[in-house]
């Protein structure tokens, strides 16, 4: 059962091949076996009762699309009366009094939450090493990182601890760990999924999305997660497509753009993976053409100004006054602030708060924040122009396969370059997916498909049809060894 995809588990439960209870129990056993991966920060204590309740509903003939399916939430999504930590000591004991819209949407669809997955602290990191709750290990090689910041979700799906999980992607935090762990992950269009109840890192870039084994599973998840939410002013009033219905439709005359300089930077083995992927996509009827994205290389510097700037304000609320970590016996207000934040927040978070504070300071605002926003517009314009001629854009997801734990932990710049292929989609607000495309030295490699605004259906159907003729996405870390 645990090896099955979401689509298969839905069938399995609906056709009563097994119950939600049985499925949940087998997953809990597996989570225990794989506890060394450190995928979860917390497991829902009532999960068994929830599975049994779902089974009763199934007996009554309920047709909720995800009824009884155990999934996992990145611990950045608030869940009613459940600890939500964002991977930080600051929120170690924070119990949310409300559900994130993503959580309530999936609940409404019948899904049950196994628990909350590990993540880089406040989603700041590309290796899951900044988590207060310890690093997550990559199921393909436990000495390697799973990527980040949604590393717990990626590793959990990859290790078959759950068939699907939620993630968030601010600069690549769904796609990069999906690539490192050999799963499929989609960052939707900015505004597609509500941000209500999702702990903010960088508000104009944060976007929640599904992480699963297949594009088909991502389609099922996305449909339930998406939609306009009046609690989030930036959520889009655009109808949600029936993504599953689009999956197998003929692609017709579909053109994918390639920005050559991105391919040339890759090492030979990764380059080979990309070439094979392009050939496979040609087999399903896609044609390729070259495009120009002249400002692509400025995405990283722009991102590392805008995201820290927003985070410096978003994280000001963690001051020890109303909730979260409060230092012991402060002697005055200033000390309460200083020590609570010094003790409650980790180094990477502090680095970004300081960088962002600097970028917004009078005298530097124009040179950094305003300039970065201008670059952001240029990057967006490049994409808008490109999408006049192509339907999708293909790119690598990451510059390398999963690196070793600790390898880049002390070199922030090297770490930030992990996001070189992913941040531009966030800056432009475009949907982008990473799908398993091959292996290098036994480690998964992902390929990225970037689509036009609200064209998740097209991305998913191309990925699905690619997955119909490849089996990278079905290779499990267990079968490898």
């Amino acid at each position, binding site marked *: 059962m645990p090896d099955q995809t979401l689509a298969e588990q839905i069938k399995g439960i609906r056709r009563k091949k097994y119950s939600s209870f049985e499925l949940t129990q087998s997953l809990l056993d597996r989570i225990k076996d794989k506890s060394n991966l450190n995928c979860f920060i917390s497991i829902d204590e009532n999960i068994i009762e929830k599975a049994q309740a779902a089974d009763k509903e199934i007996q009554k003939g309920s047709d909720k699309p995800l009824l009884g399916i155990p999934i996992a939430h990145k611990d950045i*999504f*608030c869940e009613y009366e459940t600890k*939500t930590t*964002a991977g930080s000591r600051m*929120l170690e004991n*924070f119990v*949310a*009094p*409300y559900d*994130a819209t993503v959580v309530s949407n999936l609940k409404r669809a019948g899904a049950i939450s196994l628990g909350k997955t590990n993540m880089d602290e406040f989603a700041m990191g590309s290796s899951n090493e900044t988590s207060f709750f310890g690093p997550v290990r990559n199921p393909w090689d436990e000495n390697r990182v799973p990527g980040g910041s949604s590393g717990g979700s990626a590793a959990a799906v990859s290790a078959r601890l759950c068939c699907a999980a939620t993630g968030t992607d601010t600069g690549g935090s769904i796609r990069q760990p999906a690539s490192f762990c050999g799963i499929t992950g989609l960052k939707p269009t900015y505004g597609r999924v509500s*941000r*209500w*109840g*999702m*702990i*903010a890192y*960088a*508000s*104009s870039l944060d976007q929640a999305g599904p992480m699963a084994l297949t594009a088909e599973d991502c389609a099922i998840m996305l449909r339930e997660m998406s939609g306009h939410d*009046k*609690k*989030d*002013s*930036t959520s889009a009033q655009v109808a949600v497509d029936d993504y599953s219905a689009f999956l197998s439709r003929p692609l017709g005359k579909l053109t994918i753009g390639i920005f050559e300089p991105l391919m040339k930077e890759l090492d030979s083995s990764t380059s080979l993976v990309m070439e094979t992927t392009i050939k496979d996509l040609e087999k399903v009827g896609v044609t390729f053409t070259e495009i120009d994205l002249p400002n692509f290389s400025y995405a990283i510097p722009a991102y590392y100004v805008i995201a820290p*700037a*927003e985070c*410096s*304000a978003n*994280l*000001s*609320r963690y*001051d020890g*006054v*109303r*909730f979260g970590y409060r230092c012991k016996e402060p002697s005055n*207000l200033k000390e309460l*602030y200083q020590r609570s934040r010094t003790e409650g927040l980790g180094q990477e978070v502090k680095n970004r708060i300081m960088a962002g*504070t600097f970028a*917004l*300071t*009078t005298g530097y*605002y124009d040179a950094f*924040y305003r300039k970065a926003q201008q670059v952001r517009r240029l990057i967006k314009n490049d994409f808008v122009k490109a999408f006049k001629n192509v339907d999708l854009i293909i790119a690598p997801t990451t510059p390398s396969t999963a690196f070793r734990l600790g390898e880049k932990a002390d070199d922030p710049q090297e770490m930030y370059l992990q996001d070189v292929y992913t941040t531009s989609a966030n800056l432009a607000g475009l949907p982008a997916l990473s799908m398993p495309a091959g292996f290098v030295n036994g480690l998964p490699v992902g390929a990225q498909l970037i689509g036009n605004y609200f064209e998740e259906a097209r991305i998913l159907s191309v990925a699905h049809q690619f997955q119909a003729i490849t089996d990278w996405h079905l290779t499990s870390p267990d079968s490898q060894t």
Partner: protein
Amino acid sequence: MIIANWETVIGLEIHVQLSTKSKIFSDASTVFGTGPNEQANEVDLGLPGTLPVVNAEIFPKAIAFGLSIGAEIAKTSYFDRKNYFYPDLPKGYQITQMDEPIVRNGCINIELNNGTTKSIRINRAHLEEDAGKSLHDSFPNMTGVDLNRAGIPLLEIVSEPDMRTAEEAEKYAKSIHQLVTYLSISDGNMAEGSFRCDANVSVRREGEKELGTRTETKNINSFKFLKNAINFEVKRQMNVIQSGQKVKQETRLYDSVKNETRPMRSKETATDYRYFPEPDLLPVSFDQNYIDQIKKTLPELPSEKKNRYVREHGLRESEAKFLSNDLELALFYENCHKLVKDSKQIVNWLKGEMLSRLSDAEITIKDSPISPIQLCDLIKRISDGTISVTIGKKIFGKLWEGQSISVDNVIRDENLAQLSDSKQLDELINEAIKKNPKQIEQFRNGKTKVLGYLIGLIMKETSGKANPKQVNDLILERINSPK
């Protein structure tokens, strides 16, 4: 030593609470006076993952204000974050408008004591959320935080430094207060903090081109305090300069008990607010059509009302101004005018009996126990001769005390109608003439003053219910008739 003439330069920042049912970015209630933190929800507390959603009620209110001061309305308005740490600021930033205020470049006229008017320019008016309240005296060695006010919608109105005296500043503040209450965009309740002034004050010697260093005295919540605070600051700053020192640019607090201002924090150590556009909210655009719709629904403003009262109701300028100064009074008057056309009589009653009763009871006309209908019934009964003005005042008192609801009931129950029955009066007059032959003789000899004495007798006999004019006529008729 000859002291050169000084010039005072004043600019005001006024925070007006917009009257909305719920807060500016959350659906928590704005009702005043509940227990601490009872009206602060997860958004107001700034809990992780919460997001602001703008309350659309605020835009037409701010635009109505802008249109009323002849200002430009932003085509697109957006919000910014103003970053600073304070325990009563839950998110660590305030959502406000920095670069694109909704209202820009307006002006309002104030009337000076010499009868001339002066135009005060308004630089901008922007929308923002209020912070909470720190309670420093409620707990020993601790500060409590009440977030009921956090997220209350404010319109901050920033004037140019166009005022030169504390009186001008007071008049300007009163004009703004009158305007926002007229527009019904705020209840203007100063005691509850719905209308608060920050005064930027500097002094310079006359003829100097550069402005002096200014201080900002914050959160003044009465017109009297505003005047006092400015006057104190002006004297203080002049003393500082005269003693050879420099005025420090700083934020000060006004202590109304000691009638002095005190430094709160120095601008030199002030935080850099690091404003940047609020990414959680989308810009809001207003098309001309929307603005025109608001223009159409603008109520009549004080000066327009005043002019109409003079033009159409034949009131004197001073009477019209007395009414139009206070929207509630004007509305009371207008309700009366629908029932009784005699504007002068209405004004006399409002200026006289009504005003003195209101001030004795320390209430406003909104809470008057006498309705326009009752007052008009009273005026009607006087003008149709049923009662005299003196009796009218007596009835006004009874209605005020709530002893009856109808003028006619009081007249009937207390038998207060004037004696207009001439037969009964005739008898009384005959009696009086008979009893006072000496006075009649004096009258016939040209000492007409005695007539008053005779009328007084009759009025006394009738407990004031006789119509004095009628009595006068009847006596003359009797004395002069050849008998």
